[in-house]
Structures are given as structure tokens and as C-alpha cells.
């Protein structure tokens, strides 16, 4: 067997094992949402009509399966889920998969653009700051970072709208338009500023730590140029930490996107989730949360795989 073959076997088994590990996570989330919506007050039936006949309400509950005990409903939902059926929205009477499909792309557009913005700006900023610790650039970069972490998204979004739409007239202040970059910039920047700041801080801390590591000192003592030291030793090692932060931030961005989507009338899963919760549209809530959880798990799995690519010392064990 070649080296490549030896690598593929543990990689495959790692992937299978990780995929299997997601099942209990997903089941736990689904169960938690189910139980929560069974105990919280309010129901879709009362939000549908102000004065429905009590008999009609009972029939509607029966039709929606809300008259069944929680464990029966849960069993039925899981059985359907196993076949890829997310159920039908109580509110719109559309399949939940259709509703989510319409919203998935705008959400992905928003999150990936925000992530790209935050990484492309935050990581170099952290690097530059770490290379001259205590200097003017470092201080300025850290002011940006701390501010970015502290600013409320809602407020930042409004400021950006005011500046780039109202005052400068460069960009539209809201909406999805044709889904093009023009409409994406302001929501993505609003969403991306906080992770950008985090990446800057994380990168700075990681680089500062690595710079003092033994292997960096050894490389320097062997006469390696500073550019090569940074490029081959510091950057590569810092990337592992940055990747971990990226993975965790994806989950955070999905949650924070709710505010940004609502502010900019961006048609993503976040606003679907909020509306569904408020109207107790349980299938739509479950479907939306499930998709977010699955996306989060998938991104983190991908990052685990990337660890091995960046640093061959990391084994898929």
C-alpha cells in the first residue's frame, strides 16, 4: 500500500466516525426544540384566527397533529425526517423544505461574504499588529478590534446605511435586489465586523505566542530569513488556531444573521426562524434550526479535515 493509501483509510474512517457522531447531536437538538415548543405557551391555532369556533380549533389541532402526546408527535416527526421530509408549515401550508430552499442561498451568500470580509481583513490586521507589538499599528489595530467586538450590529447597520446609502449614495440601504454584490455589501460588512475583530485579536495572540516558540528560534538561529520564518513556521501554525475560530464563528454568524437579515430585509433563514417562532409554526422552526445545526456541523467537519491538510502532524484519530 502506498503512503496515499495509508492516509486515505484513517481519513475515511475519521469521516464516517464524525458523521455518525452528528446523529446524536442532531437528535438532541430536534428533541430539545420539540420539548421546548410543547411547554411554551401559545399555539399556531390561536394566531391563525381571533375568533375561531372552539370546535374548529379542536379540529384544526387534530389536523395538525397537535392533539397527540408529545412523544407520539416526536416519533412521527423523526420517522418523517428519516425520509428527508421536514413536514409542512402550519402557517404557509408549504413544505418546510421548499421554504428553507428559498432562503438557504441568501443566508449562505450573507454568511460566506461576511466570513470572507472578516478573515481577509481581520487576519492580516492581527498579523501586522503582532509583528510590531506595542507599536502604533498594533495599538490602532487593537482599537479597531475592540471596537468591532463591542459595537451592536443593529446600530452599526444603521450607521452604515446612513453613511453609504443616504450620505454617499453608493449603495442601496436595504433589500435583496437581484442578489448582487451591491445589495450584499452593507449586510455582510455589518455581520462581518465582529468576527473580523475577533480574528484580529486571535491572530495577534497566536502569532505572538508562536513567535517565541522554540522551533521559530531554531529556524532563526539556522539563518532563515524573517520572511521565510513568518511564512513557513509562524503563519502555518497560526492557521490552525484561525481555522478553529472560523469554525466556531460560523455558528455565531448564523445566529447573529437574524438581526442583520431583519434590518436589511434580507431574505434568509434567520428571519424565517424568528417569524416561525413568533407564530408558533413548529415544523418551520424545527426545519430552520435543523438546517442551521447541520450547516454548523458540516463546516466544523470540514475544518477538522483541513487541520490535517495544513499540519500533517495532526492525525485523524
Amino acid at each position, binding site marked *: 500500500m502506498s503512503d496515499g493509501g495509508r492516509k486515505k483509510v484513517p481519513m475515511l474512517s475519521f469521516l464516517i466516525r464524525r458523521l455518525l457522531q452528528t446523529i446524536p447531536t442532531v437528535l438532541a437538538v430536534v428533541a430539545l426544540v420539540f420539548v421546548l415548543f410543547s411547554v411554551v*405557551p*401559545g*399555539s399556531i*391555532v*390561536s*394566531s*391563525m*384566527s*381571533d*375568533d*375561531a*369556533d*372552539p*370546535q*374548529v*380549533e379542536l*379540529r*384544526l389541532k387534530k*389536523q395538525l397533529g397537535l392533539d397527540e402526546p408529545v412523544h407520539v408527535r416526536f416519533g412521527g416527526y423523526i420517522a418523517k425526517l428519516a425520509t428527508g421530509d421536514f413536514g409542512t408549515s402550519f*402557517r*404557509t*401550508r*408549504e413544505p418546510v423544505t421548499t*421554504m428553507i430552499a*428559498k*432562503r438557504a442561498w*441568501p443566508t449562505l451568500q450573507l454568511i460566506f461574504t461576511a466570513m470572507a470580509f472578516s478573515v481577509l481583513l481581520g487576519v492580516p490586521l492581527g498579523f501586522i499588529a503582532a509583528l510590531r507589538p506595542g507599536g502604533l499599528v498594533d495599538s490602532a489595530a487593537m482599537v479597531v478590534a475592540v471596537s468591532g467586538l463591542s459595537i451592536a450590529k443593529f446600530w452599526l*447597520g*444603521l450607521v452604515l*446605511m*446612513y453613511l453609504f*446609502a*443616504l450620505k454617499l*449614495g453608493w449603495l*442601496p*440601504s*436595504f*433589500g*435583496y435586489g437581484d442578489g448582487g454584490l451591491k445589495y450584499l455589501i452593507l449586510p455582510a460588512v455589518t455581520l462581518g465586523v465582529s468576527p473580523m475583530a475577533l480574528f484580529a485579536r486571535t491572530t495577534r495572540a497566536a502569532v505572538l505566542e508562536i513567535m517565541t516558540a522554540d522551533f521559530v528560534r531554531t529556524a532563526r538561529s539556522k539563518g532563515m530569513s524573517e520572511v521565510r520564518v513568518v511564512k513557513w513556521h509562524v503563519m502555518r501554525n497560526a492557521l490552525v488556531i484561525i481555522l478553529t475560530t472560523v469554525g466556531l464563528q460560523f455558528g455565531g454568524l448564523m445566529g447573529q444573521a437574524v438581526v442583520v*437579515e*431583519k*434590518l*436589511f*430585509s*434580507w*431574505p*434568509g433563514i434567520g*428571519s*424565517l426562524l*424568528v*417569524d416561525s417562532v*413568533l*407564530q*408558533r409554526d413548529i415544523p418551520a422552526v424545527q426545519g430552520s434550526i435543523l438546517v442551521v445545526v447541520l450547516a454548523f456541523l458540516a463546516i466544523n467537519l470540514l475544518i477538522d479535515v483541513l487541520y490535517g491538510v495544513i499540519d500533517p502532524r495532526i492525525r485523524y484519530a
Partner: protein
Amino acid sequence: MFRMIAIVAGLGLALAAPAEAQTPRKGGTIRMTAPYGSSFTSLDIHTTQRAQDEIYAKALHRSLYIWDSAEGKPVPELAKEAVVSGGGLVYTFKLRDDAYFHNGRKMTADDVIWSYNRIMDGSKAYPGARYVRIIEGAAAVEKGQAKEISGLKKIDDFTVEMKLTEKVDPAFYLFTALTSIYPADEAVKDSFIQHPIGLGPFKFVEHVPGSRIVMERWDRFYKPGKPYADKVIVSVMGEAAARDVAFRNKEIDTSVLGPAQYVAYQADPNLKGTIAEVAEVFTRYMGINPAFKPFADKRVRQAINYAIDTDLIINKLVKGKAYRATSWLPLTSTAYDKAMKPYPYDPAKARQLLAEAGYPSGFEFEWTTSQNESWGLPIVAAVIPMLDKVGIKAKVKQVEAAVLSEVVRSGDYQAFIYSQQTGPDPQAALKCFHSSTPQSACNYMNFKNAEFDKIIDEAGQADDTAKRTQLLQKANALLYDEAPVWFFNYNKAVMAVQPWLHGVQLNATELTHQNVEDLWVDETSPAK
């Protein structure tokens, strides 16, 4: 009466006056906003009672009647005329023979009958059922006891006979989009929910969930020369601050204003002229549960009305974006009695009434509220110290809006604060207090008063409009005296309208619900 209110309240007439002198321009795009949430509920308007959804539905669909804001009443729309017989219980409608659905098919009596039968499908709990229920046999369909509404009869393709269960004006029941007439053959298809077809002046083009609905002119609309605009875009914009920026940036043509923006727009000379306002038919109040011992005594309920400085709250907290409520019927109601005076702020009188009722040291109650900024938690927080001054302690129970509506209907409260539609039909609004109206319907305070019932029954039988109005005013005055609620305010709806948008109607049922075929944009609109 309505005209008077519109003239007094409608600063928007500043917009309308020059518009009337101009010839409506054909073409352009109208860019409206849907401000009540972050999405539309459904493209099937029969399924949703949210005001948000009716904004687009007014462009897409039509009902038997339509609200005429200038007249302040519903007028025939798909019905050309109605002949009343059978002692006011039988209406024979002559339907339009020039109304075409957006698939090109002509509307017939079958579509009307099919739509009303659909709305009464009890397994779906369509919210419009509360209106169609006035037709004889409709309740039986809702309960699954019959398949078709017995009180609806097709006379010919363009004539429908409708038998009512009681003597009411069906116009007040059959004008909202909840009772829209659907094309029977298309509405049964699964595709209908993705691509709705209606009879309105604009046809469906695109829905981007959570962002917008786009519609374009329907050339076979039955009103000659209308609609004026080529296109209507309704953007979902739940955030007031974002709407404000978009409005100032001229990206939208209309924007509903909250209390803070109302003040800001009034103070800004560039924006002051854009304001249109109207007293909507909604009454905000604190509902009082008579089953809770202290509240069973009328004097205690009156004491609450005396103890609260309502004007102060309206002026300072609501920033003047409301009209003081005198009793239940709102300012724009045809039966509103302008001679009536609200309860004055009189804490001494409140204390005296409490002492007479046996509560000289007051009592404590639980007050259920949502977070609503206009009639929820902020108002409750302002009222608590006022009640405390007369010895009444209020404990706040905060719930979500969806939960509040359930609490209110189930009677599981000591007091709650709410906004309830109290028009446009004054008889229907007051009938909520009739002892025969279930609590789960709209008799949320479970009000029972034999004298009140008698007046309402008498009003229901009155053929003479003046006499009916007089009886309804009497019933409204009785409610004032009985004080089943703290009468807070009537909503003042405020909308900013760009100067290039003309034909905006001061709709007292909901300002955002515009008959879009009457709107037009002039050449100064950025969305030519």
C-alpha cells in the same frame, strides 16, 4: 363624520390637494412597505389575518365589496348592486361581468360561492370565516355538518342570492381581502400558493420570502384606465429605523411612522409635508376580568379610569400619536358620539370610589402585557405608579404577542392590555359585549349586561339608520358607565408618503391598506 375626521387629521391632504389638480400619470413603479414583521405569512390570503399580508393582497385580489376611504364605508366592488328583500335578510347581488382573473378567465357566481365555501372549511380555520359566518348555513359547513353553504344560491352566471342569519349590512363583512374571490379552478392547484391568481389591478410576478413581493399591471382590470402604475413592489421592512433611512434616501414611497419618528418628521421642515395620518378603528384598552373579585364592582373599574392620567401618557409616552378614547367606539366610527367626554384624571375621585367599594387601602392584581411599544409594556410601566397612588398595586406578567391573544380569549387573566379592532361597523364592534358573544370570539371581558343586550338587539332590528345610530350611541355610553375596560386611546396611524406618490387614501380600517389602482407616481419619482 369620516370626512370631517379626515380633514382634521389628515395632514396628508397637503399631499392630496395638488394631486387632485393633476392628471394621473400612467406608468412608473409604486414602492410600498410592509412594516409589521420580517415576512409575509402566506400568498394564500384566505389563510392569514395579519395586516401585513393584506397590503399586497389589496393589489392582487378583490372581494364583493371594497373600503372607500373618502366615504368612510364599504362600497360594492365585484358586486355591481345588491337588492335587499326578505325583511333585510336576503341580498341578491348582481356581479360584474367584466372582471377577469389574472389567468384571463372571467369571474362568475360559481367563483364567489366556491370561495365562501372554502373560507368556511372548518378543518382549516380560515380567519375570514368570522365574516362569512353571517350567511345562513355557513356555520354548518364550518362545523362539518354540511358541504355547501345553504344560504348561497347561484341565480345565473352573474347573479348570486345570499341569505343572512341576521339583519346586518354584509358590506361590512365582505370587503376585506380575507374574503377575496378566488378562481375555483386555479385555487385548488398546489401551484396557487406559489403563484396566486386574483382579480385585482396587479398580477403576481415574484415573491422573495422575507424581502418583497413584485406585481405588475393587469391590463384587463375592470376599472377603465386603471391601474395607473406599471408595477408595485411591496418590501418587507419591519425595522422602523431602516425604513426611515430608506425613506429619506428615496428608495421607498411609503413608510409607517412610530411615535419617535412621528415627532422627528413633524420637526423636520423637509419631511413634515410627507405625513399622512388618520384615526384608525382600533381601541387600545386595559381589559378587566369581572371574575376577579375587586373588578366585579363597577366602582372599582371606574376608579381605575379616574386614577390614570391618560392624556399625559398619550402626550409624553405615545408622543401624541393616538387619540384619547372616550368609550369603546373609535373616532372614525359612524356611531361615535362627539359630545361624550372621557373620564377625567381625578385620583381623589378614584380613592373615593375604591373606599365606597370596600377597598379603601386598595388591592393587588396581575396585569398581563406584551412588549408592544404603543400599547404594551411601556404603557403598563407608566400606569403602575398612577394606580399605586390610589392604592392599587399592579404586578406585571409579560408574555409574547401570540400568547397574549390566547390569554385574552381564554379569560386566563386578571387584567390585560390590548388593541382591538372596533370598526368599521359599530354594530359588530359593540356586539362583542353582547352576552351571547362567546369570550373566545371577541367578548374578552366576558361582559354580561341585560340592558346592553336589549339595546344592541333593538339596534339590530332597526331599519332606520338614524335610530340605529342613536341606539348604538346609547350602548356605547352604557359601556362608558360600566367601564369594563380602562379606555386608553384610538390609534392614530401615521404614514410618510413621498411627494411624487399621489392618490393615497386615509383608510381608517388600516392606513397601509391602499386601493393601489388609485395610486400614481409623477415624473419626479426616482423609480420611473
